[in-house]
């Protein structure tokens, strides 16, 4: 079964299709959240919240407006960012690195040790800090291209070519 059919069934409130999508994307969603909040236990709880939201909001996903992954990525980072702003998180007084992807990379450990998973150290090998910052803003913080251009005081065109080269490096690292 292809992804489009699976998503269609899920949108018709098919729980079996929903479980398949969960199996496919749970680690991605939990990984995004953990990268942002850097708290594995809390990340798993928030990850469950995200999937409940995905189920509830299933009608609002429109395939003509973007990829399913992009849609759930957006829900996940919004949930995680809300957590960062919440009192619960602030009370823990965690000294987070401003740029979460850099922070998690600098821990020098592979969180997900599953056989089919390529470690973060491998994936980000050789990437400049500028790249990690750009990936962080665009994928983990949900900045628009205009917001990134303004934040980094760089033209949109440059942002685009730079992110292209950063992702290309990851893709090369995947083949290592």
């Amino acid at each position: 079964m292809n992804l489009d059919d699976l998503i269609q069934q899920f949108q018709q409130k098919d729980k079996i299709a929903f479980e398949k999508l969960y199996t496919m994307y749970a680690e991605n969603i939990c990984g995004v959240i953990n990268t942002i909040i850097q708290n594995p236990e809390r990340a798993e709880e928030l990850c469950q919240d995200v999937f409940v939201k995905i189920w509830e909001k299933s009608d609002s996903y429109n395939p003509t407006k973007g990829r399913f992954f992009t849609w759930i990525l957006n829900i996940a980072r919004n949930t995680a960012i809300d957590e960062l702003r919440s009192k619960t998180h602030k009370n823990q007084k965690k000294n987070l690195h401003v740029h979460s992807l850099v922070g998690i990379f600098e821990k020098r450990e592979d969180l997900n040790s599953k056989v089919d998973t390529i470690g973060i150290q491998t994936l980000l090998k050789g990437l400049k800090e500028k790249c990690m910052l750009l990936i962080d803003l665009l994928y983990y913080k949900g900045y628009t291209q205009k917001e990134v251009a303004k934040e980094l005081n760089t033209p949109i065109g440059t942002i685009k070519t730079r992110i292209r080269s950063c992702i290309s490096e990851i893709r090369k690292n995947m083949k290592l």
Partner: protein
Amino acid sequence: MDIEKYIASGILELYIAGALSAEENLDVQHYALQYPEIQKEIEAIEEAMLQLTKSTSPELSDTSFKKVLSRLDDTIPFLPATSEKRIPWASYVGWAASLLLIIGMTWLYLQNNDLKSEIELTNKENEDLQQTITKTQNTIVEKEALLQELRNKNVTVVALGGQKVAPTSFAKAYWNKNKGQGIIDSQGLPTPPAGYTYQIWSLTLDPLTPTSLGLLDNFDTDTSKMFTLPNTNDSQAFGITLEPEGGSPTPTMEQLYVLGTVGHMFLL
């Protein structure tokens, strides 16, 4: 269109991130459908991001999805529209039953009241009948007693004939001298005018001396017209005069209705 240049621009990376404007997003969708290379590139970029995001996931517990599933039934309302529109039959039936019960109770109450009044009416009728029976029995006893009196061997019957003022009138006196009692049968007398009453007199003839025996009171209401009066006189005649109400000390001879002498007809 230069596909390679389009891919190299980095717009597809931003597409996966969701960082494009709605317009640019539609462009990408459009080209992806048109050019398989672009679709393939989109999937490759997505795969890179899937790998990166997956690499930072904590180890998920086996029960993780079950926890999600357990929260779904609480959050998804099932068939809310139909359940809201459902007709509350139980409620309607309840009210209808109550109404029927009230109607039934009222009907029974009214029926019971009717029966009660019927019983009362019947009881009253019974009482009336009982009274009538008693009355009739009393009348019979009275008549029986009267008849016995009239049949008594000591009774002298005196016929009183009509006089000048009422020639067609007549009366009879049944006089039991031993008992000192007279019974006057006044059936042959007309009803006295208002304010007047008949008075009965015992007479001795030589000299003519009248003695009042009494008044025939309630003449018009007494259906038998039989009056019992004491008479201890040695009467030689009896007369009845019409007198003003309450009677007179001496008879008004002009209003003498009937008169009869003792022994004139029968002497038993």
